[in-house]
């Protein structure tokens, strides 16, 4: 086997063993803290420390007991749907707005102070207000994600537009491009890598925020599920939830990164 590959597998495995050792240590000190083996059984099923037969969270992820009791798969799907809806809405509004902001100095002067003030507000601070407006858990979660996602998209799109070199615009002027041609043929291709950077940041933050938002709104979703398991004293499931959130966050970033590379002209034709 390839030596590099071996390093990439063996080294993380060693770290994993260390992490599990530390985890076991914490479990030995903190009363009722789930051990790694308890957590494994809770995830994949088997016989737990008390000798009881258990169906794992991941061995039956698709079950639907009733409206309020669904398998982990459905919790994840519902969180992803909300993130995706809020994210797509943020792209639809954020990209055109960012283009305008980047192209027009006047709109930049008009809106920039507000963007600077709104940007650092935790999206969760909006949540009570949104809940009051919509009176609906789903809409509240989606709009929270929308607010989370829109700032990096607007800011990076505008940055991309402003990064268009004067030289390219001079080429466009000599060829007498219309404004529309300038946007489609020059501004967008230059901005796309920036837009995707913004989208990648947005999606990452959106996934961070959805967990907290669902803890507050309740109902369904991976965030709600983790909080619910805390209330049910199923501490091992909290750990399972945390690991799932991490893996999905990683996958989302990976997919976004692939998309970004695909549309980034600077990544093309490079060996």
């Amino acid at each position, binding site marked *: 086997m390839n030596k590099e590959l071996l390093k990439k597998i063996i080294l993380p495995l060693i770290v994993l063993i260390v992490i599990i050792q530390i985890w076991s240590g914490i479990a030995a000190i903190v009363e009722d803290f789930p051990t790694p083996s308890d957590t494994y059984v809770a995830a994949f099923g088997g016989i737990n420390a008390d000798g009881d037969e258990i169906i794992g969270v991941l061995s039956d992820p698709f079950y639907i007991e009733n409206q309020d009791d669904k398998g982990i798969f459905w919790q994840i799907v519902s969180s992803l749907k909300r993130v995706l809806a809020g994210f797509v809405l943020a792209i639809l509004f954020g990209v055109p707005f960012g283009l305008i902001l980047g192209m027009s100095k006047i709109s930049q002067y008009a809106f920039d102070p507000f963007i600077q003030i709104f940007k650092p507000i935790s999206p969760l601070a909006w949540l009570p207000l949104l809940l009051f407006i919509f009176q609906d858990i789903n809409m509240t979660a989606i709009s929270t994600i929308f607010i989370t996602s829109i700032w990096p998209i607007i800011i990076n799109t505008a940055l991309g537009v402003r990064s268009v070199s004067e030289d390219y615009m001079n080429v466009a002027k000599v060829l*007498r491009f219309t404004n529309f041609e300038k946007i489609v043929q020059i501004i967008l291709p230059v901005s796309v890598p920036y837009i995707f950077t913004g989208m990648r940041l947005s999606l990452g933050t959106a996934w961070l925020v959805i967990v907290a938002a669902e803890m507050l709104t309740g109902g369904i979703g991976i965030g709600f599920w983790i909080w619910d398991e805390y209330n049910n004293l199923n501490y091992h499931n909290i750990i399972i939830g945390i690991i799932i959130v991490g893996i999905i966050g990683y996958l989302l970033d990976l997919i976004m990164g692939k998309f970004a590379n695909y549309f980034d002209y600077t990544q093309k034709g*490079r060996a």
Partner: protein
Amino acid sequence: MSKKFLSLENIEKRFPIAGKDDYVAVTDINLEIKENEIVSIIGHSGCGKSTLLNMISGLDAQTEGDIVLEGKKIKGPGPDRAVVFQNHSLLPWLTVYNNIEMAVKKVIPNLSPAELRERVEKYINMVNLDHAKDKLPDEISGGMKQRVGIARALSITPKVLLMDEPFGALDSLTRANLQEHLMRIQQNVENTVIIITHDIDEAVLLSDRVIMMTNGPDATIGEILEVNLERPRNRVELQHNPEYIRCREAILSFLYEKFAKDDE
């Protein structure tokens, strides 16, 4: 020459400075350029030679005076005055072919697909880049990029080709190579060319006339030198040609004796 081709009449360019008098970059520029003439504008940095070119291209507007091309006053940029930029300004996400195609498509929109391809390929061939036509600008050398820039500018058959220190960013061997390209192209397709340069040999080698600018502020045309050399010109043979030596000396004396400039 009975009819005027391109004329600059009493051109002045001022830049406003907050709280002070305007900065006068160039003033009192009067110049006539004949059709198919190759003219170099030479001067120290800061003499406003690029400003002058930008006013002819229309990318920059003069404060006073008129620039008239074939009887029409120039207002704003247009494809009849193609520009070869110093840093080539190719769009990095388009291949060599597509960069030229983009320009041709926009300026001559009625071409059939076959005519379009033929035209683009003709100009790629003119700068000997057939082998690189599907490459992206980042994949080719600086000299090749500048050749694409020239091909793109020529492909829209401008009335005037404006070159803003076109070879300034290149090493001297590549620069010589491109000068040869330009002279060869000029033999085939007659064009009116205005070249901004700070290279004396380049100015003499390429031009019919060399316009020498005084130093800014208030820069203006100091002297105009006629270069009476037969074409095609050969850079090696020229080294001992009395006319070539005379021209070189005239420019040298202008730049380093009459209008010497200290390095700031």
